[in-house]
């Protein structure tokens, strides 16, 4: 178990921390924009940088002041940091506590056929696999990864993402995976921490940070683009009645009547219907509006709708099968239903 307490580091233009973090034998993904201090956190834990304050301990042993080479902390760099003058086999052998196991790690990471080649001749994906094999060969008690998939093409990244998830779980040591990519963070992490300006904004399961963001920053960074101020009209059992402009919405959440809250809805959870279509939705939480603009994004359409009864633009995403049934043109009228469970409130 890794325990980080009140960790701080002051730079000229950036203050890191204080950060508190506990990582069991699990994968914690750390998600944040560039410059938010993700790499600083890894450098502090690995011992590349000395903290100004706070403590780091691994399985009960204090790591502060312990030299880099005695921390038993495996660190995988974004670019792999393979030794360019050694073959893949020599890279792994350099680290291996037991040279007989080189073949085992090579087989595990499917790099057996490139073992005798030098790093510059390997593809990005192969380099990352070799780097990971090298780190695992040193038998670390803690594994830190700094965006190793960032520079890879989408299909390889997708594949490695799945393989790494299974591998990390099998290690049974704390694993910290740093990334600025939401999909990678949620795919790999048992838990996800969102960082901003050197501090942790929220830690939780991937679905929690996406569907129940703690702050507006987390909401925006996890794709919750619909953020509006609303007034709580009434609280009934487990349902809050909200007002935005002339629209009334029910939300399956608790809030004090009379307060102003920020309403947060993920675009993918809004359902869109054609006006007067056969499949007309019930009236509850249904709003009408006019399509302002739309664009294709991957295999879905992103549609921005100006609401009729409130000065608000709602963003929603539509997947092809239902799209074929919609009159998707700028200026068209649409009706949308927002499930009460899809409305999250920020105070």
């Amino acid at each position, binding site marked *: 178990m890794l325990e980080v307490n009140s960790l701080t580091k002051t730079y000229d233009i950036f203050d890191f921390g204080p950060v508190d973090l506990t990582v069991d034998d699990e994968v914690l993904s750390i998600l944040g924009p560039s410059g938010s201090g993700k790499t600083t956190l890894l450098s502090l834990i*690995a*011992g590349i940088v000395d903290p100004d304050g706070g403590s780091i301990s691994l399985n009960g042993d204090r790591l502060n002041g312990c*030299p*880099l080479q005695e921390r038993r902390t*495996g*660190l995988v760099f974004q670019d792999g*940091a393979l*030794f360019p*003058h050694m073959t893949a086999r020599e890279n792994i052998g*350099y680290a291996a506590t037991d040279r007989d196991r080189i073949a085992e790690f090579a087989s595990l990471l499917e790099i057996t056929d490139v073992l005798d080649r030098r790093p510059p001749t390997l593809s990005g994906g192969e380099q990352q696999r070799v780097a990971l094999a090298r780190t695992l060969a040193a038998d670390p008690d803690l594994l830190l990864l700094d965006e190793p998939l960032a520079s890879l093409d989408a299909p390889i990244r997708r594949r490695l993402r799945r393989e790494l998830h299974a591998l990390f779980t099998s290690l049974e040591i704390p694993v910290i995976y740093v990334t600025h990519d939401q999909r990678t963070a949620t795919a790999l992490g048992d838990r996800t921490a969102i960082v901003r300006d050197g501090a942790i904004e929220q830690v939780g399961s991937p679905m929690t940070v996406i569907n129940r963001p703690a702050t507006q920053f987390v909401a925006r960074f996890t794709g919750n683009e619909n953020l509006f101020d609303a007034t709580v009209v009434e609280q009934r059992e487990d349902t809050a009645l909200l007002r935005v402009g002339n629209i009334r919405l029910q939300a399956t959440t608790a809030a004090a009547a009379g307060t102003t809250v920020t309403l947060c809805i993920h675009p993918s959870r809004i359902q869109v219907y054609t006006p007067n279509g056969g499949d007309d939705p019930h009236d509850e939480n249904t709003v009408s509006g006019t399509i302002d603009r739309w664009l294709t994004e991957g295999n879905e359409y992103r549609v921005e709708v100006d609401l009729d009864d409130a000065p608000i633009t709602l963003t929603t995403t539509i997947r092809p099968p239902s799209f074929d049934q919609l009159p998707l043109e700028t200026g068209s009228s649409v009706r949308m239903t927002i499930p009460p469970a899809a409305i999250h409130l920020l105070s």
Partner: protein
Amino acid sequence: GRFDWLTVAFLLGAVLLCYYLVPLLALVLSQPPGVVIQRLTRPDVVSAATTSLTASVTSAAIATLFGLPLAYWLARVDGRVKTIVTAIVVLPLVLPPIVSGMVLLTVVGPNTFLGGLAAANGLQLTRSVAGIVLAQTFVASPFVVVTAKAAFESVDRSLEYASQSLGKSRLTTFRRVTLPLAWPGILAGITLAFARAIGEFGATIMLAYYPRTMPVQIWVSFTTLGLENAFPVAVILVGIAVATLVVLN
């Protein structure tokens, strides 16, 4: 016209290039090879070549031994200290050689504390091979430090961190990762230092007019016997310079 400035620029560059090349070609072409080879075996030429080679190899070795640690430290330290120490290392490079010889005389000259101490123990620090080595080391060793520093800096620090995080000590990391990767640059530095040492004239002539190195031999031949008699030694030195360029590439 539109390309006048380009033509002018091209001509200026070409003139400079000719200025580097023509004198060298003139030297090579002006001397019948047979005569040069014959003169190469004269005792004074052989003696000067032996002295120069011995002293320069020693200077380059000393520069490497003392210079590499300093270069590595400079490559891995930051801030004001780095700036100041680098300036001190560069100083002998911008100091005129004749002044370098003078300042060395104020420390190791026959009437100084160090010079007297060494002489009392049977080691002459001036007018000796030791004097030549002292002069050459002062003037040439910064090449090792400056070039090796750049070579060490070009080794990505993350490779060293990677090695250490794999449980390897700093010494192992240096031996197996940093040194092999920086080696081509270090070799270039040693080559430059050797070339500078073997061509050293100003500082050497102040510290050790005798025993004669090749540059001093050229000067003496030129002033006492005329330009022609200096050619054989010059040809050796040009050969060494060209060989240096080949190593550097």
